[in-house]
């Protein structure tokens, strides 16, 4: 799929993204900007030593990602995605129909409210607790799988809002491999989701925005590696 490169007509359009290389939330914004062909400056933040710029642009949460468009900041990844979609209207990531849009927002919120906390929990828990959280995640994946309903992507023919939000799954699978955890997303258990996953990681734009694999595996080993794996 060729990414359409489009220079906007406005003079001196300045787009900056404050992020971190290993954050799925940060990577979501990269995917959206690249899908729209928006030129941007990327600033890598050190979260243990946040830049004055980040603290100025996101004083409320002091977190990444923050998008700064012509000097004006937008924070919270799903809010940023909607802003990007409304500002650069080609290659839309949200549907135009209000009902379809509500459904997309519902599933993105589900991923952030349910899957993300469970995914972080599974990496730090041990033994029986870890087993319990793993089962919880699998229930959530089953729920998400039923929403795919024979579509190529959650967004239909091309990847959209929910697919971008679901990048958490990609990160979770790298983490589980790094830590030698029980495989969560197997082809046998999740045939439909597994196919979707393959399509997602093969997508020309998406795969440009995934953290470099070896470095990413190393990141999880260092960060979470002391917890014992349960098989």
């Amino acid at each position: 799929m060729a990414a359409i490169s489009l220079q906007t007509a406005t003079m001196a359009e300045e787009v900056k993204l404050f992020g971190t290389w290993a954050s799925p939330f940060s990577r979501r914004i990269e995917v959206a900007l690249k899908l729209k062909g928006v030129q941007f400056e990327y600033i890598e933040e050190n979260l243990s030593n946040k830049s004055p710029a980040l603290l100025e642009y996101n004083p409320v949460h002091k977190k990444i990602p923050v998008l700064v468009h012509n000097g004006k900041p937008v924070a919270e990844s799903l809010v940023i995605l909607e802003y990007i979609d409304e500002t650069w209207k080609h290659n839309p990531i949200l549907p135009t129909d209000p009902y379809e849009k509500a459904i997309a927002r519902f599933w993105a919120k589900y991923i952030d409210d349910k899957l993300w906390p469970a995914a972080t929990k599974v990496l730090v828990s041990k033994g029986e607790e870890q087993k319990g959280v793993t089962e919880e995640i699998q229930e959530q994946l089953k729920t998400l799988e039923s929403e795919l309903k024979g579509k190529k992507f959650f967004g239909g023919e091309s990847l959209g809002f929910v697919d971008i939000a679901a990048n958490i799954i990609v990160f979770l699978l790298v983490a589980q491999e790094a830590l030698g955890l029980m495989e969560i997303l197997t082809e046998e258990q999740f045939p439909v989701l597994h196919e979707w996953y393959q399509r997602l990681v093969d997508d020309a734009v998406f795969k440009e925005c995934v953290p470099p694999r070896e470095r990413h595996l190393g990141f999880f080993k260092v960060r979470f590696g002391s917890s014992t794996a349960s098989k």
Partner: protein
Amino acid sequence: MADEIILLDFWPSMFGMRVRLALAEKGLKYEYKEEDLRNKSPLLLEMNPVHKKIPVLIHNGKPICESLIIVQYIDEVWHDKSPLLPSDPYQRAQARFWADYVDKKLYELGRKIWSTKGEEQETAKKEFIECLKLLEGELGDKPYFGGEKIGFVDVALVTFSCWFHAYESFGNFSIEAECPKLIAWTKRCMEKESVSSSLEDPHKVHGFVMGMKKKLGIE
């Protein structure tokens, strides 16, 4: 062809009230169905199988869940009357950010205020006031968060105001003393028929929380 709108709700829910308020702002007629959360209706379980929670809006048979998602849906479908979100993408992003902030913070802190004691309660009260002060700052000198008229953030936040009396009573503190501008804003909102008809009586809410505390064995 008339629209069929049903709202599955639970009277004290500040989330359900958001939807009632949005519907009132748009002047929409709907059927209100009160749910017993200890005995959820087959309709609720069918319309929100994922979370099994209220509020759920059912528009011509199709369900929409999650209060802020419902409010945006209402705003987009009935876009000609009383728009709740601004038309400028940057201002929309700011409105969504602050509504999300209310969602992330206030419910949990409020719950801790009425259901805990000692240090946990004190911490929750302190954080709660800090959040309200931040929101006060965002309001600034505007009559409403939405500017001259009520908007998305007003809808997201004002429904908590009928819970303030319960928080103050069980937390033993005064929100007005700490955040007078915010209380002034709640009073301004309550002057509107759409708001006063959508929010519950603070004393009724207080009674409800008292009942909850008894049931949970919290004195």
